[in-house]
Protein backbone atom coordinates (compact mmCIF):
# COMPACT_ATOMS: atom_id res chain seq x y z
CA UNK A 1 0.00 0.00 0.00
CA UNK A 2 2.74 2.41 0.97
CA UNK A 3 4.64 1.45 -2.16
CA UNK A 4 1.60 2.14 -4.30
CA UNK A 5 1.12 5.53 -2.68
CA UNK A 6 4.64 6.66 -3.36
CA UNK A 7 4.35 5.44 -6.93
CA UNK A 8 1.20 7.50 -7.40
CA UNK A 9 3.00 10.46 -5.91
CA UNK A 10 5.74 10.12 -8.46
CA UNK A 11 3.32 9.78 -11.34
CA UNK A 12 1.31 12.75 -10.20
CA UNK A 13 4.45 14.77 -9.72
CA UNK A 14 5.75 14.05 -13.21
CA UNK A 15 2.41 14.48 -14.90
CA UNK A 16 1.73 17.93 -13.53
CA UNK A 17 5.14 19.48 -13.19
CA UNK A 18 6.57 20.24 -9.83
CA UNK A 19 6.65 23.99 -9.63
CA UNK A 20 3.31 24.81 -11.21
CA UNK A 21 1.78 27.84 -9.61
CA UNK A 22 -1.40 29.79 -9.79
CA UNK A 23 -1.75 33.06 -11.67
CA UNK A 24 -3.35 34.78 -8.69
CA UNK A 25 -1.35 33.64 -5.67
CA UNK A 26 -0.02 30.62 -3.86
CA UNK A 27 -1.45 30.85 -0.37
CA UNK A 28 -4.13 28.27 0.32
CA UNK A 29 -6.26 27.91 3.41
CA UNK A 30 -7.51 24.36 4.01
CA UNK A 31 -10.41 24.20 6.42
CA UNK A 32 -10.54 20.61 7.64
CA UNK A 33 -11.04 18.72 10.88
CA UNK A 34 -7.50 18.04 12.20
CA UNK A 35 -8.18 14.33 12.59
CA UNK A 36 -9.37 14.05 8.98
CA UNK A 37 -6.44 15.95 7.61
CA UNK A 38 -4.45 12.82 6.85
CA UNK A 39 -7.30 11.39 4.76
CA UNK A 40 -6.49 13.95 2.04
CA UNK A 41 -2.70 13.77 2.25
CA UNK A 42 -2.15 12.67 -1.36
CA UNK A 43 -4.15 15.59 -2.74
CA UNK A 44 -2.85 18.18 -0.30
CA UNK A 45 0.77 17.08 -0.49
CA UNK A 46 0.44 17.22 -4.26
CA UNK A 47 -0.60 20.87 -3.97
CA UNK A 48 2.30 21.53 -1.60
CA UNK A 49 4.77 19.98 -4.03
CA UNK A 50 3.56 22.23 -6.79
CA UNK A 51 4.54 25.24 -4.73
CA UNK A 52 1.33 26.07 -2.94
CA UNK A 53 1.67 27.39 0.56
CA UNK A 54 -0.88 25.45 2.59
CA UNK A 55 -2.30 26.62 5.91
CA UNK A 56 -4.55 24.30 7.88
CA UNK A 57 -7.36 25.42 10.09
CA UNK A 58 -9.97 23.55 12.06
CA UNK A 59 -13.55 24.60 11.24
CA UNK A 60 -14.11 26.04 14.69
CA UNK A 61 -10.65 27.55 15.16
CA UNK A 62 -10.65 31.33 15.42
CA UNK A 63 -7.46 31.91 13.47
CA UNK A 64 -6.26 32.55 10.87
CA UNK A 65 -9.26 34.56 9.71
CA UNK A 66 -10.19 34.54 6.04
CA UNK A 67 -10.75 38.29 5.75
CA UNK A 68 -8.70 40.69 7.80
CA UNK A 69 -9.21 44.46 7.54
CA UNK A 70 -11.39 43.91 4.46
CA UNK A 71 -8.52 42.14 2.77
CA UNK A 72 -8.59 38.43 1.97
CA UNK A 73 -5.80 36.67 3.79
CA UNK A 74 -5.49 33.78 1.32
CA UNK A 75 -5.61 33.50 -2.43
CA UNK A 76 -7.54 30.22 -2.34
CA UNK A 77 -9.69 28.42 0.21
CA UNK A 78 -10.50 24.71 0.30
CA UNK A 79 -13.42 23.79 2.53
CA UNK A 80 -13.18 20.07 3.16
CA UNK A 81 -15.09 20.12 6.46
CA UNK A 82 -18.32 19.27 4.71
CA UNK A 83 -20.20 17.74 7.61
CA UNK A 84 -19.72 20.53 10.11
CA UNK A 85 -22.83 22.44 11.04
CA UNK A 86 -21.00 25.02 13.12
CA UNK A 87 -18.07 27.05 11.85
CA UNK A 88 -16.01 29.78 13.43
CA UNK A 89 -17.83 33.05 13.25
CA UNK A 90 -15.83 34.45 10.34
CA UNK A 91 -16.73 31.53 8.09
CA UNK A 92 -20.29 32.18 6.99
CA UNK A 93 -22.03 31.95 3.64
CA UNK A 94 -21.86 35.76 3.52
CA UNK A 95 -18.12 35.86 4.11
CA UNK A 96 -17.56 33.17 1.48
CA UNK A 97 -19.49 35.23 -1.06
CA UNK A 98 -17.49 38.27 -0.01
CA UNK A 99 -14.30 36.28 -0.56
CA UNK A 100 -15.43 35.51 -4.12
CA UNK A 101 -16.02 39.22 -4.65
CA UNK A 102 -12.43 39.82 -3.56
CA UNK A 103 -11.04 37.42 -6.16
CA UNK A 104 -10.44 34.50 -3.83
CA UNK A 105 -11.08 31.07 -5.29
CA UNK A 106 -12.96 28.41 -3.36
CA UNK A 107 -13.35 24.66 -3.43
CA UNK A 108 -16.37 23.76 -1.33
CA UNK A 109 -17.28 20.18 -0.47
CA UNK A 110 -20.87 19.32 0.35
CA UNK A 111 -22.31 16.37 2.18
CA UNK A 112 -25.72 14.73 2.51
CA UNK A 113 -26.12 16.48 5.86
CA UNK A 114 -27.87 19.82 6.12
CA UNK A 115 -25.21 22.48 6.74
CA UNK A 116 -24.93 26.24 6.16
CA UNK A 117 -23.03 25.40 2.99
CA UNK A 118 -25.89 23.43 1.46
CA UNK A 119 -28.13 26.47 1.69
CA UNK A 120 -25.35 28.56 0.14
CA UNK A 121 -25.26 26.16 -2.82
CA UNK A 122 -28.80 27.19 -3.70
CA UNK A 123 -27.50 30.75 -4.26
CA UNK A 124 -25.27 29.37 -7.01
CA UNK A 125 -28.22 27.76 -8.85
CA UNK A 126 -27.45 24.30 -7.49
CA UNK A 127 -30.49 22.52 -6.09
CA UNK A 128 -29.65 19.86 -3.50
CA UNK A 129 -31.95 17.01 -2.57
CA UNK A 130 -33.29 17.03 1.01
CA UNK A 131 -30.89 16.04 3.82
CA UNK A 132 -29.88 12.44 4.15
CA UNK A 133 -30.28 11.46 0.53
CA UNK A 134 -26.92 10.75 -1.08
CA UNK A 135 -26.39 9.50 -4.59
CA UNK A 136 -26.59 5.72 -4.96
CA UNK A 137 -26.25 3.39 -7.87
CA UNK A 138 -26.38 -0.39 -8.16
CA UNK A 139 -24.46 -0.43 -11.42
CA UNK A 140 -21.92 -1.61 -12.32
CA UNK A 141 -22.04 -4.68 -10.09
CA UNK A 142 -19.31 -4.33 -7.49
CA UNK A 143 -18.39 -4.96 -3.93
CA UNK A 144 -19.03 -2.28 -1.38
CA UNK A 145 -21.95 -0.03 -0.55
CA UNK A 146 -24.16 1.33 -3.38
CA UNK A 147 -23.36 4.89 -2.32
CA UNK A 148 -19.71 4.57 -3.42
CA UNK A 149 -19.94 4.92 -7.17
CA UNK A 150 -17.37 4.83 -9.95
CA UNK A 151 -18.17 7.73 -12.28
CA UNK A 152 -16.74 7.79 -15.77
CA UNK A 153 -15.20 11.10 -16.72
CA UNK A 154 -15.90 12.79 -20.08
CA UNK A 155 -13.04 11.93 -22.43
CA UNK A 156 -12.57 15.48 -23.65
CA UNK A 157 -13.32 18.31 -21.32
CA UNK A 158 -11.78 21.76 -21.37
CA UNK A 159 -10.89 21.52 -17.68
CA UNK A 160 -9.97 17.86 -17.20
CA UNK A 161 -7.05 15.85 -18.52
CA UNK A 162 -7.81 13.59 -21.43
CA UNK A 163 -8.83 9.96 -20.93
CA UNK A 164 -9.00 9.95 -17.15
CA UNK A 165 -9.89 6.70 -15.45
CA UNK A 166 -13.26 6.66 -13.72
CA UNK A 167 -13.33 8.42 -10.36
CA UNK A 168 -14.86 7.17 -7.15
CA UNK A 169 -17.58 9.36 -5.76
CA UNK A 170 -19.75 9.29 -2.73
CA UNK A 171 -21.84 12.20 -1.64
CA UNK A 172 -24.76 14.30 -2.64
CA UNK A 173 -25.72 15.21 -6.23
CA UNK A 174 -27.21 18.52 -7.30
CA UNK A 175 -29.39 19.54 -10.18
CA UNK A 176 -28.11 22.53 -12.16
CA UNK A 177 -30.10 25.67 -12.67
CA UNK A 178 -29.85 27.58 -15.94
CA UNK A 179 -27.27 30.04 -14.65
CA UNK A 180 -24.82 30.69 -17.52
CA UNK A 181 -21.92 31.08 -15.08
CA UNK A 182 -22.09 27.41 -14.09
CA UNK A 183 -19.44 25.10 -15.54
CA UNK A 184 -20.43 21.44 -15.24
CA UNK A 185 -17.33 19.36 -14.59
CA UNK A 186 -18.58 15.93 -13.55
CA UNK A 187 -22.05 14.52 -14.16
CA UNK A 188 -23.73 11.64 -12.35
CA UNK A 189 -23.96 8.25 -14.09
CA UNK A 190 -27.22 7.71 -15.95
CA UNK A 191 -28.38 4.87 -13.72
CA UNK A 192 -27.72 6.68 -10.42
CA UNK A 193 -30.26 8.49 -8.24
CA UNK A 194 -30.53 10.22 -4.90
CA UNK A 195 -32.19 8.09 -2.26
CA UNK A 196 -32.61 8.07 1.48
CA UNK A 197 -30.06 5.80 3.07
CA UNK A 198 -28.74 7.32 6.22
CA UNK A 199 -31.63 8.80 8.10
CA UNK A 200 -33.41 10.63 5.27
CA UNK A 201 -37.09 10.10 4.72
CA UNK A 202 -38.60 9.00 1.40
CA UNK A 203 -41.56 11.31 1.91
CA UNK A 204 -39.33 14.33 2.22
CA UNK A 205 -37.60 13.33 -1.02
CA UNK A 206 -40.89 13.00 -2.91
CA UNK A 207 -42.18 16.26 -1.45
CA UNK A 208 -39.04 18.11 -2.41
CA UNK A 209 -39.10 16.64 -5.89
CA UNK A 210 -42.69 17.79 -6.37
CA UNK A 211 -41.92 21.24 -5.00
CA UNK A 212 -38.90 21.61 -7.20
CA UNK A 213 -40.92 20.66 -10.25
CA UNK A 214 -37.97 18.94 -11.86
CA UNK A 215 -38.68 15.37 -10.87
CA UNK A 216 -36.54 13.15 -8.71
CA UNK A 217 -32.81 13.63 -8.39
CA UNK A 218 -31.84 10.95 -10.86
CA UNK A 219 -29.92 10.40 -14.04
CA UNK A 220 -27.07 12.01 -15.90
CA UNK A 221 -28.40 15.56 -15.81
CA UNK A 222 -27.34 15.72 -12.17
CA UNK A 223 -24.04 17.36 -11.37
CA UNK A 224 -21.53 15.94 -8.95
CA UNK A 225 -18.72 18.45 -9.38
CA UNK A 226 -19.67 21.82 -10.77
CA UNK A 227 -17.65 24.98 -11.23
CA UNK A 228 -18.93 28.52 -11.09
CA UNK A 229 -17.05 31.50 -12.43
CA UNK A 230 -18.18 34.83 -11.04
CA UNK A 231 -18.40 38.00 -13.06
CA UNK A 232 -15.23 39.17 -11.29
CA UNK A 233 -13.37 36.14 -12.61
CA UNK A 234 -12.99 34.29 -9.31
CA UNK A 235 -13.88 30.63 -9.38
CA UNK A 236 -15.70 28.37 -6.98
CA UNK A 237 -16.05 24.61 -7.39
CA UNK A 238 -18.82 22.74 -5.64
CA UNK A 239 -18.01 19.12 -4.94
CA UNK A 240 -20.77 16.70 -3.94
CA UNK A 241 -18.57 14.90 -1.43
CA UNK A 242 -15.17 15.58 0.05
CA UNK A 243 -14.34 11.89 -0.30
CA UNK A 244 -13.52 12.40 -3.97
CA UNK A 245 -10.25 14.01 -2.80
CA UNK A 246 -9.48 11.30 -0.24
CA UNK A 247 -6.48 8.98 -0.24
CA UNK A 248 -8.80 6.01 0.07
CA UNK A 249 -10.50 6.71 -3.27
CA UNK A 250 -7.27 7.80 -4.93
CA UNK A 251 -5.73 4.42 -4.28
CA UNK A 252 -8.88 2.32 -4.76
CA UNK A 253 -8.89 0.35 -7.99
CA UNK A 254 -11.85 0.87 -10.31
CA UNK A 255 -11.52 -2.62 -11.65
CA UNK A 256 -8.74 -5.20 -11.56
CA UNK A 257 -5.50 -3.44 -12.41
CA UNK A 258 -7.12 -0.11 -13.33
CA UNK A 259 -6.33 2.67 -10.87
CA UNK A 260 -8.94 5.32 -10.20
CA UNK A 261 -8.59 8.76 -11.74
CA UNK A 262 -9.36 10.57 -8.49
CA UNK A 263 -5.95 12.09 -7.87
CA UNK A 264 -5.54 13.53 -11.33
CA UNK A 265 -9.18 14.59 -11.33
CA UNK A 266 -8.69 16.45 -8.03
CA UNK A 267 -5.53 17.97 -9.46
CA UNK A 268 -7.37 19.17 -12.58
CA UNK A 269 -10.24 20.61 -10.55
CA UNK A 270 -7.80 22.46 -8.28
CA UNK A 271 -5.89 23.63 -11.33
CA UNK A 272 -8.97 25.18 -12.83
CA UNK A 273 -10.28 26.60 -9.57
CA UNK A 274 -6.95 28.10 -8.55
CA UNK A 275 -6.59 29.95 -11.87
CA UNK A 276 -3.87 27.77 -13.30
CA UNK A 277 -5.66 26.49 -16.37
CA UNK A 278 -8.04 28.19 -18.77
CA UNK A 279 -6.86 31.61 -17.68
CA UNK A 280 -6.75 34.24 -20.40
CA UNK A 281 -6.15 37.94 -20.46
CA UNK A 282 -6.10 40.76 -22.97
CA UNK A 283 -2.65 42.31 -22.85
CA UNK A 284 -3.44 45.33 -24.97
CA UNK A 285 -5.60 46.49 -27.79
CA UNK A 286 -4.74 48.80 -30.64
CA UNK A 287 -6.73 50.56 -33.31
CA UNK A 288 -5.60 52.56 -36.30
CA UNK A 289 -6.40 53.40 -39.89
CA UNK A 290 -5.60 50.87 -42.58
CA UNK A 291 -2.03 51.48 -43.89
CA UNK A 292 -1.07 53.47 -40.82
CA UNK A 293 0.25 52.61 -37.39
CA UNK A 294 -0.73 55.74 -35.50
CA UNK A 295 -3.57 55.31 -33.05
CA UNK A 296 -6.16 58.03 -33.47
CA UNK A 297 -8.56 59.37 -30.88
CA UNK A 298 -11.18 60.07 -33.46
CA UNK A 299 -12.06 58.62 -36.81
CA UNK A 300 -14.05 60.01 -39.70
CA UNK A 301 -17.18 58.31 -40.93
CA UNK A 302 -16.45 55.61 -43.51
CA UNK A 303 -12.80 55.33 -42.50
CA UNK A 304 -11.19 51.91 -42.87
CA UNK A 305 -10.22 50.93 -39.32
CA UNK A 306 -8.02 48.07 -38.11
CA UNK A 307 -8.52 46.83 -34.57
CA UNK A 308 -6.14 44.36 -32.93
CA UNK A 309 -6.15 42.63 -29.57
CA UNK A 310 -3.23 40.76 -28.03
CA UNK A 311 -4.33 37.85 -25.87
CA UNK A 312 -2.20 35.76 -23.53
CA UNK A 313 -2.85 32.52 -21.74
CA UNK A 314 -1.36 31.66 -18.40
CA UNK A 315 1.08 28.77 -18.54
CA UNK A 316 1.24 27.25 -15.06
CA UNK A 317 4.25 25.09 -15.94
CA UNK A 318 6.48 28.10 -16.29
CA UNK A 319 4.35 30.60 -14.35
CA UNK A 320 4.36 32.95 -17.31
CA UNK A 321 1.87 34.42 -19.71
CA UNK A 322 2.32 33.21 -23.26
CA UNK A 323 0.67 34.63 -26.41
CA UNK A 324 -2.35 32.52 -27.28
CA UNK A 325 -3.92 32.25 -30.72
CA UNK A 326 -6.31 29.40 -30.01
CA UNK A 327 -9.58 31.33 -29.80
CA UNK A 328 -11.63 30.78 -32.93
CA UNK A 329 -14.89 32.54 -32.06
CA UNK A 330 -13.79 35.93 -30.79
CA UNK A 331 -15.94 38.84 -31.90
CA UNK A 332 -15.47 42.58 -32.04
CA UNK A 333 -18.34 44.99 -31.72
CA UNK A 334 -18.27 48.65 -32.71
CA UNK A 335 -21.12 50.08 -30.71
CA UNK A 336 -22.94 53.30 -30.07
CA UNK A 337 -25.74 52.02 -27.79
CA UNK A 338 -26.24 49.19 -30.28
CA UNK A 339 -23.52 47.35 -32.12
CA UNK A 340 -23.29 49.07 -35.51
CA UNK A 341 -20.71 46.52 -36.54
CA UNK A 342 -20.15 43.02 -35.18
CA UNK A 343 -17.34 41.16 -36.85
CA UNK A 344 -15.11 38.16 -36.26
CA UNK A 345 -11.81 38.96 -34.57
CA UNK A 346 -9.60 36.30 -36.10
CA UNK A 347 -6.11 35.24 -35.08
CA UNK A 348 -3.44 36.71 -37.34
CA UNK A 349 -1.34 33.91 -38.88
CA UNK A 350 2.32 34.27 -38.00
CA UNK A 351 1.83 36.61 -35.05
CA UNK A 352 1.09 34.56 -31.92
CA UNK A 353 -1.55 36.05 -29.67
CA UNK A 354 -2.67 38.73 -32.11
CA UNK A 355 -6.27 38.93 -33.23
CA UNK A 356 -7.22 41.47 -35.82
CA UNK A 357 -10.21 42.74 -37.77
CA UNK A 358 -10.53 45.46 -40.40
CA UNK A 359 -13.82 47.15 -41.10
CA UNK A 360 -15.33 50.34 -42.49
CA UNK A 361 -16.58 52.76 -39.86
CA UNK A 362 -20.34 53.29 -40.13
CA UNK A 363 -21.69 56.32 -41.96
CA UNK A 364 -22.81 57.71 -38.64
CA UNK A 365 -21.04 60.09 -36.31
CA UNK A 366 -21.01 59.84 -32.53
CA UNK A 367 -19.11 58.30 -29.65
CA UNK A 368 -18.38 54.66 -30.40
CA UNK A 369 -16.76 51.86 -28.43
CA UNK A 370 -14.62 48.96 -29.56
CA UNK A 371 -16.01 46.14 -27.44
CA UNK A 372 -14.73 42.66 -26.79
CA UNK A 373 -17.05 40.65 -24.59
CA UNK A 374 -15.99 37.03 -24.69
CA UNK A 375 -17.60 34.75 -22.15
CA UNK A 376 -17.26 31.02 -22.47
CA UNK A 377 -17.88 28.31 -19.92
CA UNK A 378 -14.69 27.45 -18.05
CA UNK A 379 -12.61 30.24 -19.60
CA UNK A 380 -11.77 33.56 -18.04
CA UNK A 381 -14.17 36.06 -19.49
CA UNK A 382 -12.43 38.59 -21.70
CA UNK A 383 -13.72 42.11 -21.67
CA UNK A 384 -12.32 45.23 -23.25
CA UNK A 385 -13.82 48.55 -24.10
CA UNK A 386 -12.13 51.42 -25.91
CA UNK A 387 -13.97 54.64 -26.59
CA UNK A 388 -13.33 56.63 -29.75
CA UNK A 389 -15.22 59.41 -31.49
CA UNK A 390 -16.40 59.08 -35.06
CA UNK A 391 -16.82 62.50 -36.61
CA UNK A 392 -18.14 63.71 -39.96
CA UNK A 393 -15.51 64.90 -42.49
CA UNK A 394 -14.07 68.36 -41.86
CA UNK A 395 -14.99 71.15 -44.27
CA UNK A 396 -11.94 70.31 -46.39
CA UNK A 397 -12.33 66.58 -45.94
CA UNK A 398 -14.97 66.13 -48.59
CA UNK A 399 -14.11 65.01 -52.12
CA UNK A 400 -13.62 67.94 -54.49
CA UNK A 401 -14.05 68.59 -58.21
CA UNK A 402 -16.54 65.80 -58.74
CA UNK A 403 -17.37 65.00 -62.32
CA UNK A 404 -21.08 65.31 -61.52
CA UNK A 405 -20.57 68.96 -60.60
CA UNK A 406 -18.93 70.09 -63.85
CA UNK A 407 -22.13 71.72 -65.19
CA UNK A 408 -22.17 73.91 -62.10
CA UNK A 409 -18.48 74.74 -62.40
CA UNK A 410 -19.00 75.55 -66.08
CA UNK A 411 -21.96 77.74 -65.19
CA UNK A 412 -20.01 79.74 -62.63
CA UNK A 413 -16.90 80.08 -64.81
CA UNK A 414 -18.87 81.02 -67.91
CA UNK A 415 -20.72 83.69 -65.93
CA UNK A 416 -17.42 85.20 -64.82
CA UNK A 417 -15.94 85.07 -68.30
CA UNK A 418 -19.09 86.58 -69.74
CA UNK A 419 -18.97 89.34 -67.12
CA UNK A 420 -15.40 90.24 -68.06
CA UNK A 421 -16.19 90.18 -71.77
CA UNK A 422 -19.28 92.27 -71.15
CA UNK A 423 -17.36 94.82 -69.09
CA UNK A 424 -14.59 95.04 -71.67
CA UNK A 425 -16.99 95.49 -74.53
CA UNK A 426 -19.06 97.96 -72.53
CA UNK A 427 -16.02 100.13 -71.84
CA UNK A 428 -14.81 99.80 -75.44
CA UNK A 429 -18.25 100.81 -76.68
CA UNK A 430 -18.20 103.78 -74.26
CA UNK A 431 -14.98 105.23 -75.66
CA UNK A 432 -16.12 104.43 -79.17
CA UNK A 433 -19.35 106.37 -78.57
CA UNK A 434 -17.46 109.31 -77.05
CA UNK A 435 -15.19 109.42 -80.05
CA UNK A 436 -18.23 109.32 -82.32
CA UNK A 437 -19.82 112.12 -80.28
CA UNK A 438 -16.59 114.10 -80.44
CA UNK A 439 -16.56 113.72 -84.23
CA UNK A 440 -20.11 114.92 -84.40
CA UNK A 441 -19.35 117.96 -82.24
CA UNK A 442 -16.49 118.95 -84.40
Amino acid at each position, binding site marked *: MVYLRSLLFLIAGFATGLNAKSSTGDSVLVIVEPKQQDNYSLFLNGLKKQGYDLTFRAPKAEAPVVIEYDDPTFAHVILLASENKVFAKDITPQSLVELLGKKTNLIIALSPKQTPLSSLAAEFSLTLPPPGTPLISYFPKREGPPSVIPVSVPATHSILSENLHPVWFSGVPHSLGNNPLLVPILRAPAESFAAETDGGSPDALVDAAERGGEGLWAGSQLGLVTGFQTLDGSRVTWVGGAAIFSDEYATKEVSKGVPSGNLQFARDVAKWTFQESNVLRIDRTTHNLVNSTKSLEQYTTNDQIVYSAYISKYDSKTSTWAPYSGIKDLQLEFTMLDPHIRTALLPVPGVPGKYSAAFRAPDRHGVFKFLINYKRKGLTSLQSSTTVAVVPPRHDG*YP*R*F*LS*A*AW*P*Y*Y*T*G*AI*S*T*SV*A*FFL*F*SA*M*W*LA*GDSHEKRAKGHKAE
Partner: protein
Amino acid sequence: MAPKSSPPAASNVVHSLWKAYSDQTSDRMKFIDAFLVFLMLSGVAQFLYCVLVTDYPFNAFLAGFSSNVGQFVLTASLRSQVNPENKNEFKEVSPERAFADFALGSIVLHFFVYNFLG
Protein backbone atom coordinates in the same frame (compact mmCIF):
# COMPACT_ATOMS: atom_id res chain seq x y z
CA MET B 1 -42.39 101.32 -75.46
CA ALA B 2 -45.17 103.08 -77.31
CA PRO B 3 -48.23 101.00 -78.02
CA LYS B 4 -49.22 100.51 -81.61
CA SER B 5 -52.19 102.47 -82.87
CA SER B 6 -53.93 99.47 -84.50
CA PRO B 7 -53.89 96.00 -82.83
CA PRO B 8 -52.10 93.47 -85.04
CA ALA B 9 -53.34 89.99 -85.82
CA ALA B 10 -52.66 87.38 -83.13
CA SER B 11 -50.03 85.58 -85.21
CA ASN B 12 -48.23 88.85 -85.77
CA VAL B 13 -47.96 89.82 -82.10
CA VAL B 14 -44.60 88.26 -81.55
CA HIS B 15 -43.26 89.55 -84.85
CA SER B 16 -44.42 93.10 -84.21
CA LEU B 17 -43.15 93.00 -80.67
CA TRP B 18 -39.73 91.93 -81.92
CA LYS B 19 -39.83 94.63 -84.60
CA ALA B 20 -40.76 97.31 -82.12
CA TYR B 21 -37.99 96.15 -79.81
CA SER B 22 -35.33 96.15 -82.49
CA ASP B 23 -36.44 99.50 -83.82
CA GLN B 24 -36.79 101.36 -80.56
CA THR B 25 -34.03 99.96 -78.39
CA SER B 26 -30.53 101.34 -78.50
CA ASP B 27 -27.58 99.04 -79.22
CA ARG B 28 -26.33 99.38 -75.65
CA MET B 29 -29.62 98.12 -74.27
CA LYS B 30 -29.63 95.28 -76.77
CA PHE B 31 -26.15 94.34 -75.69
CA ILE B 32 -27.26 94.23 -72.04
CA ASP B 33 -30.34 92.23 -73.02
CA ALA B 34 -28.19 89.66 -74.85
CA PHE B 35 -26.12 89.25 -71.68
CA LEU B 36 -29.32 88.83 -69.63
CA VAL B 37 -30.63 86.16 -72.00
CA PHE B 38 -27.34 84.29 -71.76
CA LEU B 39 -27.50 84.38 -67.94
CA MET B 40 -31.09 83.22 -67.94
CA LEU B 41 -30.41 80.29 -70.25
CA SER B 42 -27.38 79.26 -68.20
CA GLY B 43 -29.45 79.37 -65.01
CA VAL B 44 -32.27 77.35 -66.55
CA ALA B 45 -29.79 74.74 -67.79
CA GLN B 46 -28.28 74.33 -64.32
CA PHE B 47 -31.66 74.15 -62.67
CA LEU B 48 -32.79 71.44 -65.08
CA TYR B 49 -29.57 69.52 -64.51
CA CYS B 50 -30.13 69.75 -60.78
CA VAL B 51 -33.73 68.55 -61.00
CA LEU B 52 -33.27 65.87 -63.65
CA VAL B 53 -29.74 64.54 -63.04
CA THR B 54 -28.27 65.24 -59.62
CA ASP B 55 -28.18 67.90 -56.94
CA TYR B 56 -24.94 66.48 -55.53
CA PRO B 57 -22.83 68.36 -54.59
CA PHE B 58 -25.53 70.76 -53.59
CA ASN B 59 -23.15 73.59 -52.69
CA ALA B 60 -21.82 73.60 -56.26
CA PHE B 61 -25.35 73.88 -57.59
CA LEU B 62 -26.13 76.75 -55.22
CA ALA B 63 -22.93 78.54 -56.23
CA GLY B 64 -23.43 78.08 -59.96
CA PHE B 65 -27.12 78.93 -59.91
CA SER B 66 -26.80 81.91 -57.57
CA SER B 67 -23.95 83.33 -59.63
CA ASN B 68 -26.36 83.42 -62.58
CA VAL B 69 -29.20 84.88 -60.54
CA GLY B 70 -26.98 87.46 -58.84
CA GLN B 71 -25.33 88.48 -62.08
CA PHE B 72 -28.77 88.77 -63.65
CA VAL B 73 -30.02 91.08 -60.88
CA LEU B 74 -26.92 93.26 -61.04
CA THR B 75 -27.08 93.49 -64.83
CA ALA B 76 -30.80 94.27 -64.73
CA SER B 77 -30.20 97.14 -62.31
CA LEU B 78 -27.38 98.39 -64.53
CA ARG B 79 -29.77 98.30 -67.42
CA SER B 80 -32.41 100.37 -65.60
CA GLN B 81 -29.85 102.90 -64.43
CA VAL B 82 -28.18 103.52 -67.80
CA ASN B 83 -31.40 103.48 -69.80
CA PRO B 84 -31.89 107.06 -71.15
CA GLU B 85 -35.64 106.68 -70.64
CA ASN B 86 -35.12 106.42 -66.89
CA LYS B 87 -32.95 109.52 -66.72
CA ASN B 88 -35.45 111.37 -64.53
CA GLU B 89 -35.55 108.64 -61.94
CA PHE B 90 -31.74 108.32 -61.56
CA LYS B 91 -30.73 111.92 -61.79
CA GLU B 92 -27.88 111.64 -59.35
CA VAL B 93 -26.53 108.39 -60.87
CA SER B 94 -24.39 108.87 -63.92
CA PRO B 95 -23.94 105.92 -66.32
CA GLU B 96 -20.26 105.72 -65.28
CA ARG B 97 -21.21 105.51 -61.61
CA ALA B 98 -23.83 102.86 -62.46
CA PHE B 99 -21.24 100.79 -64.28
CA ALA B 100 -18.75 101.12 -61.41
CA ASP B 101 -21.42 99.89 -58.96
CA PHE B 102 -22.20 97.01 -61.29
CA ALA B 103 -18.56 96.00 -61.68
CA LEU B 104 -17.85 96.16 -57.93
CA GLY B 105 -20.98 94.19 -57.06
CA SER B 106 -20.15 91.57 -59.64
CA ILE B 107 -16.60 91.12 -58.40
CA VAL B 108 -17.82 90.66 -54.82
CA LEU B 109 -20.47 88.20 -56.06
CA HIS B 110 -17.93 86.12 -57.95
CA PHE B 111 -15.63 86.10 -54.94
CA PHE B 112 -18.38 84.48 -52.88
CA VAL B 113 -19.37 82.13 -55.69
CA TYR B 114 -15.87 80.66 -56.04
CA ASN B 115 -15.57 80.28 -52.30
CA PHE B 116 -18.76 78.33 -52.24
CA LEU B 117 -18.20 76.31 -55.37
CA GLY B 118 -15.51 73.81 -54.28
